[in-house]
Structure formats: structure tokens, C-alpha cells
């Protein structure tokens, strides 16, 4: 019995070490990220309705279709390419609002694969390449004031919390639960919280006597808990902060994302938002975090809104940690994360482009090669020379 089992093949007799490999392959990594992105997408569908599902599916399908066509044209086996393309498509879809028309979604997904994946080889995040190019061409479609009805699942009688039909005009907006709106679409016509923050930083929110921050927090922005749950206007995957944190923890526990990256990115963004000045009455006020009005720590609330009200969470947990487009070593990733966090807040406060987190991730992606060279490990035994 054993004699027969012992006949060892020629190939295995001459193999060189190592003979055992860790079980983790690129496919596992991509699958874990895809699963994480799917959870975020599901939460987006819960908030924004079937239209969001349509956007996500269309995005995935177009990305995969392009990948298949390119594979057929160049006669290369697809391998892990298809799952990677599906992931890119899904991430691209997560950055879009649910109101975007289908042709824009398909265009962006195709651009993501063609330009991001094929031309840049994934060194700049492909989904974000698609996102910023779409932003160039179809800026009006992204600003949520589209003309398509969205029919959210949160409409009356659909879900428990956050009844979107009862949201009101900006002046009296008290959150999704407490104000009345004429139709479901009105909620999507609301200003995004991050736009309100930008307007505020450029002295666009009228002050109420001595109170500068209070009008912003009281009248313009939704309650902070809504930005945690995700019941605010925005991209499909951008708003649900809690879900993003959970999937981030999942990726960290699987070992595919280093915890330092999102933590440092959010921390540096918080520090930047705390320090960088906002313009109030033609005067730059530094250290907004220290501001108190009527014994309320309005400055702290302002910084918290900066963290949860934009694309920062999606960027920190799903986009910045992309294995190909982030630095190799942990030290490099720290520099990378600080760069993204500070740049995001800087562009949000003083820039004109929306999608500032996506831009800063792309800018830092372009610097990854430099960071890697700078953070090269010393070879053992050569430290003193």
C-alpha cells in the first residue's frame, strides 16, 4: 500500500524551497475587499433605494464587460482580472450619487478600466480615475440636483428610521425624522453636509449676531447622528459611516488593511480641520476647534462633521488602502495617510473642486513611488555604512 503511495513524481523531487506557502492569494484579497464593498453598497441601497442598486450593478457589469472584451482582444487569460474589474466597478459605483443617469455610470466604469487599470496599471486608484474624469464631463449630474426621481426605500411606510419624505427645506431642516417635506425627491435636493461646510469656510453662512458656528450647526447641517447612520445626501457609499467602520474592521481583521492607515488618515484630517482657519467676516480664524459659543463646544462639533460628512470615511476604509496604489511599508503608509488627510481638509476649505478626498488620494497615489524610495528599509549589516 505505502509502496505505491511512495512513488514520487520527478517534478516534486527537484522542487526548490520554500515547499509550503501561505494560503493567501491575490484572489482572496480581492474577494475580501469586494465583500466589504458589497456591504457598503447594501447600506447605500437601503438609504437611497433601488436606483442605487441599479447604479452599482450597471457599474460592475460595464467594468467586467470591458475587461472581458479587452481580454478577448489581447488574447490574454483573464485570471484574477475579472474579480479585480468587478471590485473597481463596485468602488466606482460607490462614489456616485444614486441620481446619476446610466450612461454616465457606464462611461465612468469603462474609463476606470481602460485608463485606470490598463494605462496607469492600477498605480493610481482606477475607480477614482474614473470618478474624477466623470466629474470633468458630467459635473451637473454629480451635484445631486439631477432630474431623475429616486424613490427611496426610506419613503413613508418603507423603513423604520429616517423617513425621507418628511425632510424639509434647508432653513428648517432638523434631520430626517422631524421635518416635513413635500416629496421624497426634495431630500435629494438638499445641500450635502460637506457642501455646507465648504460654504461656511468661505464665509457663506450668515452669522446670527455673535454666533458664527451655531447657525451652521443648527440650521444648515443635519444632526450629527444622521451623518453616522448615513441618512444624508451624498454618494451611495459615502454616507454610511458606521457601516464603513465595520467593514474597515473586517478588512483589518483579515490582515488586508493596516489599521494605522485609516486611523492616521482620520486623525490627521481631524488635526487639520482643528487648526486650519476658516474665513469669518473677512478675517481668518485659526484653531476653529477651540471655539465655544454659549458654552457649547461648537468647534469640536464642527471638526466631527468634517470627519463624517464627506467622502473621508469611504476614502479611509475602502479606497486609500488599495494594495496596489498604497505604499509598501507601514512607515510609507503613515506618510501617505497624513498626506491624504491634510490635503482633503485643505482642498475642502480652500479649494473649488468637489470630491476632494478622491483628488487627494490620487495625488498621494502619484507620490507612492517617491515615498517607497524614501522609506526603503536599511539592509541588515549595512546600517553604519
Amino acid at each position, binding site marked *: 500500500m505505502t509502496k505505491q503511495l511512495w512513488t*514520487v513524481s520527478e517534478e516534486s523531487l527537484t522542487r526548490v*524551497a*520554500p*515547499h*509550503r506557502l501561505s494560503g493567501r*492569494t491575490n484572489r482572496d484579497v480581492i474577494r475580501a475587499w469586494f465583500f466589504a464593498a458589497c456591504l457598503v453598497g447594501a447600506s447605500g441601497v437601503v438609504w437611497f433605494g433601488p436606483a442605487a442598486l441599479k447604479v452599482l450593478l450597471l457599474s460592475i457589469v460595464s467594468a467586467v464587460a470591458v475587461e472581458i472584451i479587452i481580454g478577448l482582444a489581447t488574447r490574454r487569460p483573464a485570471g484574477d482580472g475579472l474579480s479585480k474589474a468587478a471590485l473597481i466597478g463596485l468602488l466606482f459605483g460607490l462614489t456616485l450619487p444614486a441620481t446619476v443617469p446610466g450612461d454616465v455610470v457606464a462611461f465612468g466604469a469603462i474609463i476606470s478600466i481602460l485608463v485606470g487599470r490598463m494605462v496607469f496599471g492600477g498605480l493610481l486608484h482606477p475607480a477614482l480615475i474614473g470618478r474624477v474624469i466623470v466629474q470633468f464631463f458630467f459635473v451637473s449630474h454629480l451635484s445631486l440636483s439631477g432630474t431623475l426621481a429616486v424613490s427611496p426605500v426610506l419613503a413613508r411606510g418603507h423603513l423604520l428610521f429616517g423617513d425621507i419624505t418628511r425632510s424639509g427645506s434647508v432653513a428648517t431642516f432638523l434631520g430626517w425624522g422631524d421635518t416635513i417635506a413635500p416629496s421624497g425627491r426634495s431630500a435629494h435636493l438638499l445641500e450635502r453636509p460637506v457642501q455646507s461646510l465648504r460654504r461656511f469656510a468661505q464665509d457663506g453662512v450668515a452669522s446670527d449676531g455673535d454666533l458664527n458656528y451655531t447657525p451652521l450647526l443648527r440650521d444648515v447641517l443635519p444632526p450629527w447622528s444622521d451623518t453616522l447612520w448615513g441618512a444624508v445626501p451624498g454618494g451611495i457609499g459615502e454616507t454610511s459611516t458606521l457601516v464603513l467602520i465595520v467593514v474597515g474592521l473586517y478588512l483589518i481583521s483579515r490582515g488586508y488593511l493596516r489599521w494605522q492607515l485609516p486611523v492616521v488618515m482620520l486623525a490627521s484630517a481631524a488635526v487639520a480641520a482643528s487648526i486650519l482657519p476658516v474665513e469669518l467676516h473677512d478675517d481668518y480664524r485659526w484653531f476653529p476647534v477651540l471655539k465655544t459659543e454659549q458654552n457649547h463646544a461648537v468647534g469640536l462639533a464642527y471638526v466631527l462633521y468634517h470627519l463624517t460628512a464627506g467622502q473621508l470615511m469611504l476614502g479611509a476604509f475602502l479606497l486609500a488602502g488599495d494594495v496596489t496604489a498604497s505604499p*509598501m511599508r507601514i512607515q510609507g503608509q503613515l506618510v501617505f495617510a497624513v498626506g491624504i488627510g491634510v490635503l482633503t481638509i485643505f482642498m475642502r476649505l480652500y479649494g473649488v473642486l468637489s470630491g476632494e478626498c478622491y483628488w487627494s488620494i490620487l495625488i498621494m497615489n502619484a507620490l507612492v513611488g517617491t515615498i517607497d524610495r524614501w522609506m526603503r*528599509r536599511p539592509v*541588515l*549589516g549595512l546600517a553604519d555604512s
Partner: protein
Amino acid sequence: MALLANLLGPRKAFDGGSFLPAHKSATAARPIETLPVDGPLYVPLTARRDLRTVPVVSGGDHVLRGQRLSRSIGEDSIPAHAPVSGRVVALDRAWTPYDGYLPCAVLEPDGREDAVPQRFGWEDESFIVQLADKGVVCPSPRAPLHVLVKEAVAAGVTELIVNAMETEPYLTTDHRILIEEPGRVIDATCELADALGVSRAILALPFRHRRVVKRMRAEAAGRHVEVFPLPDVYPQCHPVLLVKSLLDREVAPGGNVLDEGVIVLPLAAVRGAAEALLDDRAVTHAVLTVAGDAVVRPGIFRVAVGTPMRDVAQYVGLTAPVTGVVCGGPLTGVALGNEHAVVTAEVPALLMFATTHHAAPTSCSHCGWCVEDCPVGVDPTALMNLESERHCHVMERQQLDACIACGLCSHVCPARLPLAETIRRVRMRHVLKKDTAGAAES
């Protein structure tokens, strides 16, 4: 703080490395068994291809256990001894995993345990002669122990490190030896330290096995052996990293630990020295971990030198056709090379696997896991590109030299790229080129 250090263990003393799944539970609790001899043994007459010996037996001779089968020529070579009593059938050749075909004596055991009389008095001979006479070999670097001792004395070493780290998966030989022969390990270490004239003798062993550490500390109390527990992060077992962790000295790329005044001996060599010095017995058995997912009854076996690997496999039983047989650890061991291979004294383990882990490589995704885990700070992906180039720069050359061939980069690579394999090949090519260039100049 001390309590915390006791619970969590010492800090990793070098960058990189990785905690691998151990796979040790199947064998770690089993006592060392002696494999019964029931077939002819093919005892190699020399320990290494370049060490010459002359057979002193011929076909038809009857030999006793421990009797000499060959005589060494020159100072460096060592004789072979009969592991069992029996009849020499013929002189033939046998495949050894590290050296290919070597001359061997085919020994038919007679079942009687007749041994050559022991002398208990080797004091009239020198330490070096005793080690050489009893055929003590060291598995890494692969050389007779007395040659290493002579080199170390010539280099003027000041520290002796006994390496019982065994951080590779599946291997538990050193662990069992520490459990079963703690006193002899310490005794032999003291003897070697005396002979080498070192100022410090350190026994490095895994922190995780707390009772073993405690026992060894008790045995070493009052002796000049320091017991040093280290975290069992792979590849802490490599001499260069032991020197870094224990003494905080860095060996230059391509250098030897002897340059730093240190000699690192694996526990197997110390065990051999214990047999030669304390018992005056020739080293005729290897202690092997036999494990792997194809093995029915994994364990640690004292196997006579010259036993065909096939007999070992037959004794432990196989569950499925083996697709990979490895001599040594799964990350640094060598493939068997030939299915008729025999056990030699320096084989540390025999691993048999039914599953294969090798798959077609995909493209590099720049994840940086290889860079993060590399224990010497090399960028394996950058070195892979050297394969297609004729020259390499000084910095790349240094990286090539610094590589300690631990195999971790290939192990962790999610794209299944043959990183370690390629680096080894590139290094061989550049070393060969340097040698031929040097020969041309002189």
C-alpha cells in the same frame, strides 16, 4: 512590567519576520522513538562529497555496532560507522539528499545488538580528534563539527550560541531533545564552550515553551551557559538573526557569523557532540521529525544512518500519494531528489505532503508583504528583475548578498511569484561570475 514581559514575551529584535502556523502539535508531545531496522542499510562512507574516505570493510565482512566502516583521508574528513551489527553485503552507492550519490556500504543487519566495547577514557586524545573519530557532523553549516571548531578557534570566537529555535513549521526535533536530554545538552555545551575558549555560551530557545525554558534554566544554574528565550518568529532560527537578536551585532551582507566572533551551532550538532564526548559513542543515528499531511503517524524518530527514506515512510504510513517530500523544514529544506534516498546524519526532518501549494504565478500587485516580512530588509521584487539583466549595481549586489534564503518572500506572496527561488538563482549566477572573473584575473 516584568509580569507583562513574562506574559507577552520578549520583543522581536529584528524587523520583519512572520509568525507562521506551527503545525507542531502532532509531534511535539510524542517521545522520541527508535525506528526498528528491518532491511538492509545503505550507510554512506563519507559525510560530504569533497571529504575523502577509504573503506576499511569489504563485502562479506561482519561488523559490530559502532565499528568503523571507512577511514578518513586528511584532517577534515570523518569516518563512517556501522549503526547496527550485521554483515556487509557489498560496497555500492546510495543517494543522499544533500550530495547526490555517495559511496556506501550495504549492511544486512543480523538482529544481534553486538556493539564495539566502549572505552570511557578519551582524555588521552584531543577534543578535536574525539569529535572527528566519532563522526560528529553539523547540519548547518553542513560540515564535520571538528572542522567548524577548528575554524572557530582560528577565528578567535568569543561567543557560542546553541541554536534550539526551530521556528520552521512542523519541526519539533530540538524541542523533544530539550525535553528528553536537558542535562546532556547543557553538559555538551559546556564542553564545547571550554574547547572553543569562548567567554559566553548562550542557549537560544523558543520563549513559548515556558516549561522547557524553566527546566533548561534549572539545568544551567551555576554553569556558564546562559539560557535565552526568544520569540519564535520565523526566521529567528537563522544564525545572522540570532547574532542580531542576542548580541545586537549585524553581520555584513554575504558575511559569516565568524566575522563577528560568534559561532552558532544547531542543537543537532550539540547532541552529536554529547554522544561523542559524554558516551564515547559514534554518531550513527539521526533524529528526525517525520510529519506532513500525508503521514498517518507523525512523530520523532531516531533513525539509523543509511535507512532508505522509503522504509521510514513505510513505518509511519502514508494516507495519500505524496506529491512532495522535503528533507528539512518546509521553508528551507531540500527536495528529496531521488526516491531511493537514504537518511544521513545531518537530515533534520522528513516531511511528506499530499497537497501541493504550488500554483501558476499571477502578476505582482505591489502589496509589499515580501518587503514587510523580509528579515534582512531586501526588496525581493526588485531583485527578481535582475533575472533578465546581465549586470547588477553595487546596491543590488549587496542586497543579493544579504539575502539569507529564508524563503519567507515566496511563502507570503499572494501572487505566488517564485521570489526566493529566483533570488537564489540570480545569486548563484552572480557568484559564479565573480568566481570566474577572479580566476581569470589571477
